């Protein structure tokens, strides 16, 4: 059964995303996907229409993978960051060429930073992922299929 995020939950999420990254608005319908993951749908079908469709067809995915909810924060997906990039203004870590390459190889980074928790990683003007900073390192969450393969 398709489970949509209720408006109260969405509002709480917006507040958290505002605190974390400065995101004030989530212009999507949010759908639960498993225990801790959310997908975002920007399309025109209503909740009822989607539910009706899900009864008729074997629906595999609705919209795109948006975020994973952790106890210590929200980990946005790379593609959600791209769609919301105009709103992102906080907890941004700028990487140099070497660090960026290391990131795309899927490695955790040694990186001194005051930021603790989930951070948006940028190389030049591109958002290249979301990592978890812990003061002297950044944990890499880049999906395997988005990494540079050797």
């Amino acid at each position: 059964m398709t489970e949509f995020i209720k408006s109260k939950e969405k509002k709480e999420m917006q507040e958290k995303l505002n605190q974390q990254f400065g995101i004030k608005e989530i212009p999507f319908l949010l759908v639960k996907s498993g225990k801790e993951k959310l997908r975002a749908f920007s399309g025109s079908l209503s909740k009822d229409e989607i539910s009706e469709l899900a009864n008729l067809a074997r629906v595999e995915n609705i919209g795109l993978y948006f975020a994973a909810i952790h106890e210590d924060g929200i980990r946005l997906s790379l593609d959600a960051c791209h769609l919301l990039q105009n709103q992102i203004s906080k907890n941004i870590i700028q990487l140099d060429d070497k660090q960026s390459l290391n990131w795309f190889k899927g490695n955790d980074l040694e990186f001194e930073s005051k930021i603790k928790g989930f951070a948006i990683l940028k190389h030049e003007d591109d958002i290249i992922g979301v990592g978890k900073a812990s003061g002297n390192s950044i944990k890499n969450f880049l999906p395997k299929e988005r990494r540079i393969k050797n």
Partner: protein
Amino acid sequence: MYEPKPLFAERIAKLLPDREDREKFWEIVRKEPISSIRCNTLKISPEKLKEKLGKKGWKIEQPYENKEIMIIKSELLPGELGKAKEHLLGYYYVQEISSMLSILALNPKPGELILDLCASPGSKTTQASAVMENKGTIIANDRDMGRIAILSANLERCGCANVIVSRMDGVQLCERLKGKIEFDKILVDAPCSGEGNIRSNPKTLLMWNPKMIKVLSGIQKKLALSAFQLLKKGGEMIYSTCTHAPEENESVISFLLANFPAEIEKINLPIKTREGIIEWEDKKYNNKVKFTARIYPQDNNTEGFFLGKIRKK
């Protein structure tokens, strides 16, 4: 390059009776296809992407009015297009130019309800989503899990948020939706014998056989008629394949025109096209199938393709 089977060569000779034209066909299908990409405007503008790729030393040409269509003129290393940071970030989709034509012809608009019946790997779904600016809804269907995984990965990478993915046999899906959902526009990019893809997949010449064309023609007719019934009145459907075989192309369109309240629409595309044929072997098709579009590789230095645009009366 594999040698074509005699019957295939014979059929191409019937389709291209002019010797010089035919020689050009066989000459170009022996060459590797050009490298082309489509800028994903959901994530970046063509100007900015061109600038970024230019900084890498890639020479980019944009020969068409649709600036998202880009040709890479530089010699790249094998796999370089797929490994580039800009590709991993979803700024572009590696897509052959002829494959971009279905969505140019369908012309989906933001807010419309679209069905992409045979959607994997997602080149056309991602293109439609970009044209629609992530507004409106696309139902993208394919039938097996492996193909769905590829489709889903491409939709994620390209930031397509207005797509619902379903996994069903195309005909079965249409039966389930019939009378319950009506679409503004439908794309049936049907599974085909792939005669148009010899340049990128020369093994097609080895696998080609006339029995397969007959079987595929039956499947394509079922898919096309099932999908057509889901169109709202005035709705439009693009039927496309990457093959030259008339049994898989004009025959399918002629079948729709004969059995349904369908009218054919002329298609304007940014590349050279040729009219559909109205006679093939012992078959005579509806005269109006001449308004379909055949794309031969020698005309535009692309792969081969076919499109027909049908409107529900």
